[in-house]
């Protein structure tokens, strides 16, 4: 990149304004061009390759691959455990954020940094650590086995891994909103005689609603697609503890490329749906700001 390549489009385009409010800052053509080119090469064209591969199947073949008994069981497991994990994170995420925003306690900086651990720790590391902890003779597992709870190699284990993965999404989405909650409504509610619990339930929690939903959806979406932290603890038994991403890999290893693409299309469709929901929730919440 030289100075000429950036400043050149300015002189040529400033005579023919393309848009109503043109910025005086140069480099628009170059940077947008680079952005769109890289985006197409890395994201859009490869993604369309999956759709094209899946489209080589007839509708009946597609349904047989994407909605086989085994695939349906895998979706049920992936979506079900992601949902349970997101709900648990939804509850503890609010409490964690509340403690981080409202309370002062020793070691707060460490707790705050720790919340981001799932973002920074490789998923495979989390996976083998959780599998070891929750296996029948692991640190935690040995206390669960006498209670009749089989955590590892079971859907319970999948849920535990997804709780680990999803927590920071809820906390980091809630945090800025909770920090910006103005104290006056809360003070008003209190001065009008509302109890502390009533103030929290009827004033604070509703204000957190959109951010909570966004964090919940982000954690859920991440959980549905998660692979690394789950496969070590899941047990990977077909129909029982086999997650959808693993089924894609199994199809791939059997050189059933189109079948793998069919399952991937279903997962992508759900991802896009989640993305739409998240955008809709955010657009909806902006109306109240």
């Amino acid at each position, binding site marked *: 990149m030289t100075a000429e390549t950036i400043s050149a489009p300015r002189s040529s385009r400033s005579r023919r304004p393309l848009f109503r409010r043109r910025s005086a800052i140069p480099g628009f053509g170059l940077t947008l061009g680079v952005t769109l080119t890289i985006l197409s090469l890395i994201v859009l064209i490869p993604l369309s390759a999956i759709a094209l591969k899946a489209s080589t199947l007839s509708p009946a073949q597609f349904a047989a691959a994407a909605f086989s008994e085994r695939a349906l069981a895998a979706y049920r497991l992936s979506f079900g455990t992601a949902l349970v994990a997101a709900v648990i994170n939804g509850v503890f995420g609010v409490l964690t954020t509340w403690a981080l925003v409202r309370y002062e306690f020793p070691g707060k900086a460490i707790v705050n940094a720790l919340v981001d651990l799932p973002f920074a720790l490789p998923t495979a590391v989390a996976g083998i650590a959780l599998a070891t902890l929750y296996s029948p003779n692991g640190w935690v597992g040995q206390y669960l086995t006498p209670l009749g709870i089989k955590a590892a190699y079971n859907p319970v284990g999948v849920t535990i891994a997804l709780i680990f993965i999803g927590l920071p999404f809820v906390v980091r989405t809630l945090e800025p909103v909770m920090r910006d909650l103005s104290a006056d409504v809360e003070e008003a509610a209190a001065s009008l005689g509302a109890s502390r619990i009533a103030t929290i339930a009827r004033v604070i929690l509703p204000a957190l609603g959109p951010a909570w939903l966004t964090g919940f959806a982000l954690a859920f979406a991440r959980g549905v697609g998660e692979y690394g932290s789950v496969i070590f603890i899941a047990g990977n038994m077909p129909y029982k503890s086999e997650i959808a*991403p693993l089924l894609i890999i199994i199809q791939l290893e059997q050189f059933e490329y189109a079948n793998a693409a069919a399952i991937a299309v279903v997962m992508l469709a759900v991802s896009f749906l989640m993305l739409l929901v998240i955008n809709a929730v955010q657009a909806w919440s902006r109306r109240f700001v």
Partner: protein
Amino acid sequence: MASQTARARHPTEDPLWAKLVVLGLVLLFLGLVLVLPLVAVFAEALRKGVQPALDAINHPDAIAAIKLSLITAAITVPFNALFGLCAAWAIAKHHFPGKPLLITLIDLPFSVSPVVAGLMYVMVFGLQGWFGERLIDHDIKIIFAVPGIVLATIFVTFPFIARELIPLMQEQGVSEEEAAVSMGASGLYTFWRVTAPNVRWGLLYGVLLCNARAMGEFGAVSVVSGHIRGLTNTMPLHVEILYNEYDFVAAFAVAALLCLLAIVTLVLKGILEIAQPDVKRGGGH
């Protein structure tokens, strides 16, 4: 609030018992979910003492995996930084239609399963893929080779830096750049002397997160790597192989190395957030 000293507690403050209950629950939950796995990694790695753990890290296959992870991050991070800067410059400093759609598309890799991300490069460059035969004719290997690993890593870390820079540059507005340009500064000079100093901490923040994920990516890399020891094994894949061979001490020793990387990342991130509170605005995942 000094006038309200008659009340022991401000009305928007929780009673002490509630604080203790909430804090107790939170610390118990975080301890169980986050701290325990971290402790378990180091405990398992050192189960037979320090020497076996060091031997596992010194093994040629482990060193090859560490090198490959470093190479992958060394290509991925600058590439995504360049992309992030270009995207943020175009989006934050200019007006054009379709901006929300572009931002959504940049975010897309966050919501795609890593396994699906790996699969799509197999569909493009694999044996049965679009360019599969032509690549064989020219003896170019992308899938089951280093280029595929780098591509898959670029995809999963794609939004990290852009997501950090776009809101930051939007917030800073265009007046400083417009002033520089109106006084005759070139675009590159304006970027280097006006914009870059304003966004360098945000950029560093994005680089930190991007690097951590690039070194640790598992699902996407696992699909395209082929797990060839000493050649296409990154650190997380090496951990998987050792674990599946029941070589737990070695698996957890390499995992402990990755844990240290995560802890360093979190410490640097924490320092950055305290020193430069602005950087936290981006909300990268």
